[in-house]
């Protein structure tokens, strides 16, 4: 076997590996596209506080598909996707789904005023946020593997496991497809 043949065989082997890789991952460069994160806990053991200071565990939602959305009143991209989240809650909450908004780097009173006073245009209808809101903390973010930016959302399966992570603004078509695939 000469050097050319050896190099060619190496190249074919590399191509086989490449095809295997790309077949395993649905990689897309679009913002908000979700993938199953490799380095994240499968089932985060997390206790949030609601706006009244009561404990809300993620485990208490087992049996439902949950989209945990880390957001902030100060975060314009987070606010920009709230109409999508309201519509998701409106459409799928009766089918075993819930949004859970985790306000981060915010104060309870600011969040409380925001969720009660801010109207969003959802398909031409003015609506306020219609899903449970809890407070996020650094400790909670860490249990989700840390936040690289906001908004960041995690799609949780009915048995409490992270199915996908979404960094940045959600793509509406993608998140609808992903939620439906879990229901």
């Amino acid at each position, binding site marked *: 076997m000469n050097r050319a043949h050896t190099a060619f065989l190496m190249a074919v082997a590399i191509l086989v590996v490449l095809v295997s890789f790309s077949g395993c991952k649905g990689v897309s460069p*679009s913002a908000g596209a979700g993938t199953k994160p490799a380095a994240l806990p499968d089932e985060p053991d997390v206790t949030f506080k609601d706006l009244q200071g009561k404990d809300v565990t993620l485990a208490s939602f087992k049996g439902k598909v949950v989209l945990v959305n880390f957001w902030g009143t100060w975060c314009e*991209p987070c606010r920009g996707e709230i109409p999508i989240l309201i519509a998701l809650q409106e459409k799928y909450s009766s089918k075993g789904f819930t949004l859970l908004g985790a306000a981060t780097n915010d104060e309870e009173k600011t969040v409380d005023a925001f969720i009660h006073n801010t109207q969003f245009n959802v398909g031409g209808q003015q609506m306020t946020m219609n899903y449970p809101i809890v407070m996020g903390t650094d400790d909670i973010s860490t249990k989700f593997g840390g936040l690289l930016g906001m908004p960041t959302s995690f799609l949780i399966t009915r048995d409490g496991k992270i199915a996908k992570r979404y960094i940045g603004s959600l793509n509406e078509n993608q998140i609808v497809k992903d939620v439906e695939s879990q229901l």
Partner: protein
Amino acid sequence: MKTAMRFAHVFALSGLMLISGVATAPAQETAAPKNPSEIVTTHSFVSLDPVPRGKEFQAAIVVKIATGYHMNSHKPSDSYLIPTTLTPQLPSGFKMAEAVYPAGRDEKFPFSPDKPLNVYSGSVTFRLRLTAEDSAALGAATIPITLRYQACNMSACLPPVKVPVSLQLQVAAAGASSHAAHPEIFTAKPTS
């Protein structure tokens, strides 16, 4: 034979480059902001060297914002948005007359297509009008300043952060000779 060899090498190299791309650029990371320390860099300047006691001088904080990022201006378009602020921790013997923030620019973003946001991007220069009073200690002085900002890219934001900035200057006796420093910064019109 040489052509086959070259083809095989290029093929192998292309494969390696593609594998590298697949392995290091998963989709969720492309939307993730950079590390905060990579997004904003700061440099500070003083308008006089040295600064005589009793004479007003200026400090300039030049903030460079990474391409593709912006931060809210000092007067953001919404009360929920976090303004960019400079807060000096003045040592004894210094007083501040004014902090001068340039106007931001109204820009629309994919996440806010209808409502423009008032932001800084690129390079922005903030100024402080300061005076070393008669009680200021002579010699080298440091004025710590806190820059608070909240930055975003086109689809995600970083949490609000406070970054320390340090202003170094020399204080001289009242009436001591001094020269204007960094005229390229202090004679320019404030920009954002």
